[in-house]
């Protein structure tokens, strides 16, 4: 039996269908939507917190979504080692829920960043990246106004010491610099994993680059890694 993915739907989620489509139609996975007011994860083996503007991003991005009934189950699931993947707004929810360390602040430019960028994969030894079969950075779009990751020095040191920085913004050929960082995030951080290796958050949208018709399938390597980890 195929392992099931559960895509959480918050009021204001708008990448939930992209995630569902890419998993179901492209990756041929078993997927279901999980309504934020429910508590039942329906035997999902992987939980996706999708992009969007949950609760209108009021107060702080992810601050209110974190208290949705389903999040109690997601937090419990994550603490037991369940696989949780937060994309964009989902990453912000994971930070607010305390499942990942640090905070997200407004993009340095104050502008919404919506474009293709490149991320270097800094840790391929994770559930989410082990099938990435290239040394080249991945091309994945970002679409956010608050993706400027920040954490204090102790947290950053701990992230580095434990190899928790999984994706960093870079050039196409793996160079780092402000011109390749769309939001000003510290250490060019685009995605981090928790210490136990079962919770990943990233700002870029891999679910938007799975369908070959879009002529970029880099996102498949990430979802393929998760699939090969659970099946």
């Amino acid at each position, binding site marked *: 039996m195929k392992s099931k993915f559960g895509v959480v739907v918050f009021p204001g989620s708008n990448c939930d269908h992209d995630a569902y489509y890419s998993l179901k139609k492209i990756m041929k996975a078993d997927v279901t939507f999980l309504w934020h007011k429910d508590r039942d994860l329906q035997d999902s083996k992987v939980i996706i917190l999708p992009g969007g503007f949950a609760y209108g991003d009021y*107060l702080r991005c992810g601050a209110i979504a974190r208290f949705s009934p389903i999040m109690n189950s997601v937090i419990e699931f994550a603490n037991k080692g369940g696989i949780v993947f937060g994309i964009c707004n989902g990453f912000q929810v994971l930070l607010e829920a305390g499942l990942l360390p640090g905070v997200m602040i407004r993009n340095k430019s*104050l502008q919404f960043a919506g474009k293709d960028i490149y991320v270097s994969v800094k840790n391929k030894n994770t559930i989410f990246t082990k099938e990435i079969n290239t040394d080249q950075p991945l091309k994945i779009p970002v679409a956010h106004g608050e993706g400027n990751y*920040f954490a204090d020095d102790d947290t950053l040191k701990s992230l580095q010491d434990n190899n928790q920085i999984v994706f960093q913004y870079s050039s196409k050929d793996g160079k780092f610099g402000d011109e390749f960082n769309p939001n000003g995030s510290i250490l060019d951080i685009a995605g981090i994993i928790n210490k136990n290796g079962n919770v990943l958050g990233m700002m870029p949208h891999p679910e938007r680059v799975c369908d070959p018709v879009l002529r970029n399938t880099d996102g498949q390597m990430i979802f393929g890694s998760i699939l090969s980890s659970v099946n």
Partner: protein
Amino acid sequence: MFKAKVLIKRRPSILDPQGKAVEKGAFHLGLTNIKDTRIGKYIEFTVDTTDRESAEKEVNEYCNKLLANPIMEDYEFTLENAK
């Protein structure tokens, strides 16, 4: 009943891109003495209890768990008797 007034400020160590951008506006207005603009939040609400201590406890919990993110923000509040 109490009226709570909460002030949420971003920690000095945290960059405030919004404050910086707004300050550019001050410059264009010719207000050259304006420096270090930082943008926070002001939130007010009532607490429906007559016991000040429990009101303070509830406001602290509201601030710590929801209104402010203690990783990047500090908060302060006042409680006034309200009818």
